[in-house]
């Protein structure tokens, strides 16, 4: 498999404090890779090493098969980066800033101006083109930072907490844009601590906690373990709840805010899936909601992170 980003035993100390510990990232080509972990897990430090802002204490980084930071200039021809807090030249207008970033990416002046205009429209700041960056809200700055990452049409995007300052609508819009960029075949590396967003955007995930990579791989493969805690909602919850309590494969069932929580004996999950909906239909009760209580990724996160904490 071709890896766009590959690290080997990547380790970072700040003084005597170990921030990143033997990190072995493998980001295949064309995936949307979610780098997921709680605040302070080491996500931003890792990204800073990937973008040559910090030097690893030891370990290797390869991007496009080239060593970082030794081949930084070659690597950066094809990398777009969005920092965790939007950084920009505050005295420039959005148009000036994006044109400058385009020119630094190697675009000719006219091409850079053209792309800047396109990207301003794409991220939704077209009407603010001549506003100075210091006059923008943090959400608007975030959009400008995203446009700056996209200028030059890079093959790899490294986005650090990209939705942090966006409003809910902006987040939905952003997720849509990431999915369409993924369809174009770009490799996207996104750091985040928001599980639901990673689930929507990413097909690959790396879980980091306290500087250690706890798990990594396709989300579908990591979340194969079956859930035994489900949320159910029906047109008649009373009937459904009573029936569930009578079933031998149900360990516990109770109602919380019109949702029935069911804990199923994992040995009898097949029976639960086959028999319970059939029974409801026979009673004339319509099934409105039937899903695992926690998202698969959330569950794997909780499992893995608790293991990480115990081992410390």
């Amino acid at each position, binding site marked *: 498999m071709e890896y766009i980003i590959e690290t080997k035993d990547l380790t970072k100390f700040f003084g005597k404090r170990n921030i990143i510990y033997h990190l072995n990232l493998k980001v295949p080509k064309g995936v949307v890779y979610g780098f997921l972990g709680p605040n302070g897990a080491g996500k931003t430090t890792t990204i800073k090493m990937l973008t040559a802002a*910090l030097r690893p204490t030891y370990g290797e980084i390869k991007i496009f098969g080239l060593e970082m930071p030794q081949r930084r200039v070659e690597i*950066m021809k094809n990398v777009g980066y969005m920092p965790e807090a939007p*950084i920009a030249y505050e005295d420039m207008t959005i148009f000036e800033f994006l044109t400058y970033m385009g020119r630094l990416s*190697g675009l000719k002046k006219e091409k850079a101006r053209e792309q800047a205009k396109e990207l301003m429209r794409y991220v939704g700041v077209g009407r603010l083109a001549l506003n100075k960056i210091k006059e923008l809200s943090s959400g608007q700055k975030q959009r400008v930072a995203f446009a700056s990452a996209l200028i030059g049409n890079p093959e790899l995007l490294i986005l650090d907490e990209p939705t942090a300052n966006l409003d809910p609508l902006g987040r939905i819009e952003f997720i849509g844009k990431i999915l369409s960029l993924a369809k174009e075949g770009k490799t996207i590396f996104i750091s985040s601590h928001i599980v639901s967003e990673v689930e929507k955007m990413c097909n690959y995930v790396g879980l980091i906690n306290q500087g250690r990579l706890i798990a990594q791989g396709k989300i579908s493969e990591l979340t194969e373990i079956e859930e035994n805690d489900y949320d159910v909602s029906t047109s008649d919850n009373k009937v459904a709840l009573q029936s569930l309590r009578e079933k031998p494969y149900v360990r516990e069932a109770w109602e919380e805010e019109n949702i029935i929580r069911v804990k199923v004996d994992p040995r009898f999950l097949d029976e639960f899936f086959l028999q319970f909906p059939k029974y409801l239909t026979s009673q004339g009760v319509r099934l409105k909601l039937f899903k695992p209580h926690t998202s698969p990724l959330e569950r794997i996160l909780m499992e893995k992170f608790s293991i990480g904490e115990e081992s410390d």
Partner: protein
Amino acid sequence: MISVLYQNEVYRLLKSRKLKVMLVLMLLPVVVYFFTHEEITEYSAKALEISFQINVSHFLINFWASVIGQLVVIIVMSDLLASEIDRGTIRLLLVKPIKKSEIVFGKFFSGITAVLVIFGIPYFVMQIYMVLLYKSGFEGFRATFDDFLFALGVTVLVLGSLGAVSMLLSVVLSRPLYASLASFGLVFTAQFILPQLPFFDNPERFNLSYQIGVLLKRGFTLHIGLDTYKGDPTMSAVFFVSVILLSLIFTLLGLYRKEYGG
């Protein structure tokens, strides 16, 4: 890529209020000359050239390259890299296909361009005013143009070396204000305090203004008063070029060693 960085930085500097204030400050000697110039007794290109050399040397040694001029250069040059590091925008440059040497040299040359503007405009205004005063027309302009360029070259060489040292300190300290203060401290210690120690002969030669006099001696041959500045202009020029080169090399090394975690 260096040209993109250079153009952007020059544009930013030229637009800045700081540069305009400094330019006004540097125009002060011209205003002083306007009100206090000597009575003109001979209207010729030769007389103009002698007067131009005398007046430019006087203002250059006593004002333009003295404490005020040095402060101006330190403020301009220490901001170039330190502001990028301080605001974190250096990280935007590091994720672009631009070499660190291009960042250092692009910034340095943009700073030198700002110095050329801040000092070049007053020199030029002075030249034009004197040409008009001596009623020597194009002939007078041509006669003093070489002197104008020479004075500007000497200014850039001496103050450019000071600027390069400021850039080096700014990379070490990462904050424009601290870098400016450290540069002032270093420069004034080197010029005024260390030479007071008993084992330094002729302490005034450590003064940048004095070295300006030494360098001007080479080109301003009609101004015999410059002979009081003892020293070899070539050696002084070599010294200042070396300071510029060494400072830029160490600035580059500093940029390679530095981490940008903030």
